[in-house]
């Protein structure tokens, strides 16, 4: 597909293959992943456990645990620069500075024996000029930014609640004004009310700083609320991508449709919840063809043989499904 207008992309992933080589065999975590994200936008990455969402996030930082994880092929570009050919030192300069990541569990991403302001200052000292005092001052400002009084900076993680800890983690991620923030299930461990507070706060900060955000989640409600563009992943592949409106109002892939109808809605009366029968395939032994074929209600003979090419449905909307290719 030729693009006449050159998009301003913060990150671009092409045909990425990531494997985990374990004692039990080779697990294909990502299998030809394609992703691009425009500067200043929020991209929602949705899918179930094992779809490869977190692996995608870690790839962008080149943080896939090795062994057993290996990036087999493909390219990852940040600001047009290929990060796979960078030296470790160059990569270190990027992590936390250009790209930062927030992990799901705030309880385990903080050091229990270090005050929170010291932990935030650590990142600042690593990437920016200035001494300890300046870094600590900056750390307290960051705490204020995420809604924690700077005076609490001298406290330890156990003195904070789960929601507050996640705020600290966010403050740490934002400390060096990253261009790209990868938020991996940032609110999954939290109560809905705390979740709403944190998401509102993140939206506010993003608008102010013009940050690009990749939001990884399994909660369709959160992506509907936060993301402009959505990628639906299944078994290490992108099965559908589009604007939030494309995905929610005009879903084209049977998996996306099934996922949407499996979610109970507060605002609607539902007689029966649709389910997706079966479970995702074992990626140590991935099926030939489309990985969703076994669970797909509209399976065609060809689905079990070959993975379908991308079909472009509109400017923003693309899907990988034989049903769409047939109608071309």
């Amino acid at each position, binding site marked *: 597909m030729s693009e006449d207008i050159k998009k301003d992309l913060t990150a671009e992933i092409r045909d990425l293959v990531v494997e985990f080589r374990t004692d039990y065999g080779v697990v294909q975590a990502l299998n030809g992943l394609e992703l691009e994200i425009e500067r200043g936008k929020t991209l929602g990455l949705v899918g179930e456990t094992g779809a490869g969402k977190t692996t995608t996030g870690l790839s962008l930082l080149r943080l896939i645990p090795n062994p057993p994880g290996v990036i087999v092929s493909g390219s990852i570009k940040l600001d047009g620069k290929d990060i796979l050919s960078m030296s470790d030192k160059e990569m270190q300069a990027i992590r936390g500075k250009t790209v930062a990541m927030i992990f799901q569990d705030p309880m385990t991403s903080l050091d229990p024996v270090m005050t929170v302001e010291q932990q935030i200052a650590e990142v600042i000292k690593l990437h920016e000029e200035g001494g300890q005092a300046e870094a600590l001052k900056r750390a307290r400002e960051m705490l204020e930014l995420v809604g924690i009084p700077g005076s609490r900076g001298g406290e330890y993680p156990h003195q904070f609640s789960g929601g507050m800890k996640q705020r600290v983690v966010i403050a740490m991620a934002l400390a060096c004004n990253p261009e790209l923030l990868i938020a991996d299930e940032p609110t999954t461990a939290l109560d*809905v009310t705390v979740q709403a507070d944190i998401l509102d706060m993140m939206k506010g900060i993003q608008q102010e700083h013009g940050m690009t955000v990749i939001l990884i989640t399994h909660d369709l409600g959160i992506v509907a609320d936060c993301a402009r563009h959505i990628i639906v992943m299944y078994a290490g592949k992108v099965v559908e991508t589009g604007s939030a409106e494309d995905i*929610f109002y005009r879903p084209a892939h049977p998996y996306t449709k099934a996922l949407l109808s499996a979610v109970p*809605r507060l605002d609607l009366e539902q007689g029966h919840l649709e389910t997706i029968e079966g479970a995702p395939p074992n990626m140590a032994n991935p099926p030939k063809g489309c990985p969703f074929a076994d669970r797909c209600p509209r399976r065609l003979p060809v689905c079990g043989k070959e993975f379908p090419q991308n079909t472009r449905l509109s400017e923003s909307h693309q899907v990988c499904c034989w049903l769409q290719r047939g109608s071309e």
Partner: protein
Amino acid sequence: MMNQTDYLLEVKGLKKYFKVGGRKTLKAVDGVSFYIRKGETLGVVGESGCGKTTCGRTCLGIYDKTDGQVLYRGADVHCLSRTEKQKFTKQAQIIFQDPYASLDPKMKIQNIIAEGIRAHKMASGRDEIQERVSSLLETVGLDPGYGSRYVHEFSGGQRQRIGIARALAVEPEFIVCDEPISALDVSIQAQIVNLLDRLQEERGLTYLFIAHDLSMVKYISDRVMVMYLGKIMEITTSKALYHSPRHPYTRALLSAIPIPDPAMAKKKVRIPMEGEMPSPVNPPRGCRFQNRCPYAEEICMEAEPALEEIENEHYVACHRRIEI
């Protein structure tokens, strides 16, 4: 109003306190009263620390009570004789939240499921037990041949099905479902909820369904109870709760739930809550929600509001329930 004898479970002024070091007491459940009719599903929602799990466990007699009464078919579950207690444990079962931690990794699936059958002498001889286990596995949608496997061979959704089969093994009439779907993926959640729905229809089961996911609770429950810091804030039918919530806390909770629809999400107005939930060791005076409530007045700081019926089957604990 239905006759009281229709109540399968009736809870009156139940309190459960825990001692937490020093002279401090954690008031996990602090005077709750509600009932569940036979064949009905009562959903319990609230944020972590509101006492919903403790409430469920105390109802089953897993925890001793501090005060109050839990009446199951009219009998106090905390004052049963040995034989009565044995009968009660057969009638009332629980499905746990974490399907990874609640199944013994060293036992075969068939033994996990058969434990209750043996304990209650519900089948005699190996073949009969085997037969029952196979049919239970089938009921919950698992291959009957899986009986000789171990827990680690199963996915989260399958484990939760095993947990359900274990609960069903003694043919209970009442099941406490303690966040049975929180640890599962979206598509698997729907499978489990539909399974619970089907079992209820087929076997006339009564559920106390504890969850923090309000959308799912609305879907599965006939009535919903909202808890905050060990107290009931509101109980009503699941339809009324979502269409005409009266308690400010219920409203705030509902408004925090993301709606999977981009246009609706943009239109939605959130009712903010001030600060964080206080510790149940040291709850605020008066109404428990007073320090975070946008409608709080002087009376709310002083007196604790009682749970009062404002409409048929709609109970609210709020001083300002009429005006707001």
